């Protein structure tokens, strides 16, 4: 069965929870300023499995060596007349020591304002990631969880909200360029891998079979400013 509406629906608004990888797993250095973009999304069945090409543009700034503030605008949502932003901070509270990884936490919000409807909605997010730097360029692997919180008590047609906490495990890798002028991120996100998907309107393709969806993302960021430069 052809599902153009379902696919487009998926492409445009699933982005709320899944249009970007973790923004900053490792904080920037103090006073570092970066810009970047991300591309990718959940994998769907469309004549074969493909990740949806969701896009966002991000900015990050190192407030301190272990604290980065960031924000992003979701360009796909903008095409549909919505202002969708996410913003938050990443704080590293544990340093790597032999087998103990660095650990960072990223509380943030995702805000979506629909211009036609003049209504806005906000979702709190909490990411917790462990990451391991390696090599001269301190590239790193990371593994963690992305948590979305739905605050509404009800959903469509006055039904009780089915899920208030959406739990999305993720793994990723970041390659750094020479002198750390750029970073390239690759991430797999296992979106709600405990919620059945086989009868969802959108044709999810998931590594966890009939549950959840699998997101695949790439991102790139460039360092464009630092007080030291």
């Amino acid at each position, binding site marked *: 069965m052809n599902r153009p509406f379902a696919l487009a*629906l998926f492409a445009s608004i699933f982005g709320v929870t899944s249009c970007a990888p973790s923004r900053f797993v490792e904080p920037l250095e103090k006073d570092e300023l970066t810009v970047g973009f991300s591309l990718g999304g959940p994998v769907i069945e469309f004549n074969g499995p493909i990740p949806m090409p969701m896009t966002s543009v991000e900015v990050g700034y190192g407030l301190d060596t272990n604290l980065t503030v960031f924000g992003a605008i979701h360009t796909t949502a*903008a095409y549909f007349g*919505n202002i969708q932003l996410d913003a938050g901070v990443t704080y590293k509270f544990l340093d790597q020591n032999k087998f103990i990884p660095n650990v960072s936490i990223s509380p943030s919000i995702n805000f979506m304002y629909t211009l036609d*409807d003049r209504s806005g*909605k906000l979702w709190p997010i909490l990411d917790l990631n462990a990451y391991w730097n390696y090599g001269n360029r301190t590239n790193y692997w990371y593994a963690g969880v992305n948590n979305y919180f739905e605050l509404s008590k009800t959903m469509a*047609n006055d039904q009780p909200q089915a899920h208030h906490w959406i739990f999305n495990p993720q793994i990723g890798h970041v390659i750094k360029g020479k002198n750390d002028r750029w970073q390239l991120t690759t991430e797999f996100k296992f979106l709600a891998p405990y919620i059945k998907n086989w009868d969802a309107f959108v044709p999810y393709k998931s590594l966890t079979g009939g549950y959840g969806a699998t997101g695949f993302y790439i991102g790139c960021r460039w360092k464009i400013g630092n007080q030291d430069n």
Partner: protein
Amino acid sequence: MKKIILYTALLAFAIACKKGNLDSLAFYGEKLDAYEFENYAAGNEAVPDEYAVTAANRTLVSMQSIDEKTGESYTIYGVYIGDVSTIATDTVILYAHGQAAHLDAYWPRATLLASITEQYNYGVFMMDYRGFGMSEGASSESGLIEDVNASIDWLIDQGAAAERTMYYGFSLGCIPIIDRAANRADFQPAKVIIEAPLASVANLTQRSLILNVNPKSITNLEFENAEKIKDVYMPLLWLHGIDDDYIAIQNGELIYENYGGVYKDAERVVGGHHGDIPATMGYENYITRLRNFIEL
């Protein structure tokens, strides 16, 4: 830093100015120059020859469907299976098809409906919405309702009696069927049959996305079947495949639960998917199920 923020905001604003939406994608009609009906190669949708309807027993009909906002008129097409001259005394099923293609694709289903008793004792009327088959124009949510309205008008013009008229909607077709059953006071059908209905666009999106996302962020469509069914009072039969992976059965359950009338009946089809209910139930079982409901 200020420049970056400014440029990013300008970029987003520029993109937002050229706003897109998905409304047209909900209507997957295919244009045709001519219908094939009994000669159409239905593939997997084909039904056994014993249900075949010959060209002599069908009539191609054209109607004018009016856009109530603009006043523009569109010629839409329908097909009546049975004897037009006896509509006034026949039991008639008004069938509103799903989102795929055109009338030809639903011809096999119409022949099954025409076989509910002995063939042609029941008239079956189905139409192509704007943008489907030979019908002019482009589909919209209001257009679906206006097109079914035009079909009801045609039936009235032929003398059809409301008390012997059944409305039957499949999938997308449930939207205008439920709306007309709820809101058209001058022609209240005897009974309503809905197969694989969606509850609402909001329900589809939020059930799929888990979060309570405003569907208005990408579409103006509402398809509020779950609300409108509260104003449907004639007897209701709902059929839905338990294994429907396109419009999950939860949609139908919600509509069934919200139904505002007194008599309702449900057929949750084990192993049924979207569009294969007759084949899954067995054609005779399907026909018998409908007959039993209609003849209640």
